[in-house]
């Protein structure tokens, strides 16, 4: 049996079509480990992204969400508690239990 890992609830929403990659569900409650197991740093948005890719991204075309370097695909906006993540520190933002992170795919059609 694997040792139990302490987790926190994070509300993750996908919009603009990204939900297609995540079981067609726009709203997810994710149990995120409170530490990044690779370096024991507190879980930040960068870790959340890798966690989502590893555990929740069920679609073969992962390039719609992340690039080969593990960073988010350009054209995806991230909002932390309804605020543009650039105001919050982007990938470095340290998550708190109950935080809401929204990933929105930029649309171009008309």
């Amino acid at each position, binding site marked *: 049996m694997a040792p139990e890992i302490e987790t926190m609830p994070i509300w993750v929403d996908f919009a603009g*079509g990204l939900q297609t990659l995540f079981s067609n569900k726009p*709203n997810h409650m994710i149990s995120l480990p409170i530490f990044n197991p690779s370096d024991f740093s507190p879980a930040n948005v960068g870790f959340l992204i890798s966690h989502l890719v590893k555990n929740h991204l069920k679609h073969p075309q992962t390039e719609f969400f992340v690039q080969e370097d593990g960073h988010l695909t350009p054209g995806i906006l991230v909002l932390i508690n*309804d605020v543009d993540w*650039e105001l919050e520190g982007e990938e470095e933002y340290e998550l708190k239990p109950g935080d809401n992170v929204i990933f929105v795919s*930029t649309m171009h059609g*008309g």
Partner: protein
Amino acid sequence: HNGFSRRLTDEEFDRYSRQMIVPGMGREAQLRLINSKVLIIGGGGLGCPAAQYVAGAGVGTIGIIDGDVVEPSNLHRQVGHATSRIGMKKVDSLITHLRDLNPLPTYTPYTYPISPENAADIISQYDLVLDCTDNPATRYLISDVCVLLCKPLVSAASIQKSGQLIVLNCPPTPQGKVDKKYPPCYRCCFRKPPPANTQLSCGEAGIMGPVVGLMGVAQAGEAIKILASALHLPSSIPSNPEDDPHNLIQPTLLIYSYDLTAAPGPFTFRALKMAPRKKNCFACGENSPQTLTLEGVKSGNPNYIQFCGIQTPKIVL
């Protein structure tokens, strides 16, 4: 003679009284609409409903630019066109419809696509721009020229069951002014386009009519707000935007998620707070007068097609 103090004609009063009596509107706001010039870029799924309500409200000069012709596959959502006008330029078709809805505005057709060569000449003649186009390269071009010419931009997009809307560069603020909370441009919000292989058009991915329709109507609603409040006029730029009484200038991305299998819910519409103008923005940031100029745009710099990549879409989302 500036038209702001004149009386309304009987016909104007007949047409616009129902909106003039709404609290917050009134004769002055109506005259501002009548004296405004709005450019609608794209006469498709967004442009049709946006134009209907912009024209209905009495905006005095309405330019429409689009190089496409009306096709049968447009008509489920492009409600300003008609079966009898299939094959006609969309701009001419839409203006035919609008002129019968409201003959009072001056309608100016541009029956070719907007391009780096013609964008500044056209946009410079208007007070406010609606981006109703359908591809990233054009969206970056329009925003860049709006920054350079100091025009507010109401940008919307829609695909499948999703829509987005954001008001940019409003109040219109000169390029390079970033020391306070000045408004963002399209590049501030969407720094890089998605890779070409993840870009999808409505033709490839599909689109629900009421979704794009709702975004187009909402664009008209935002445009009317700005014009009625005179926020499109250069004099409206506050020296310190944080002190400004206008709640209109909080940059906000509206996201609409239509769900065929669910009633509207708390996530159907989301209003997301966007960051203000960015210091390092290529188009409007501190050093942007060195990176983006009207001459540059006209002569192919930046290269929008290269920046956005050549589209070889895979249909998935």
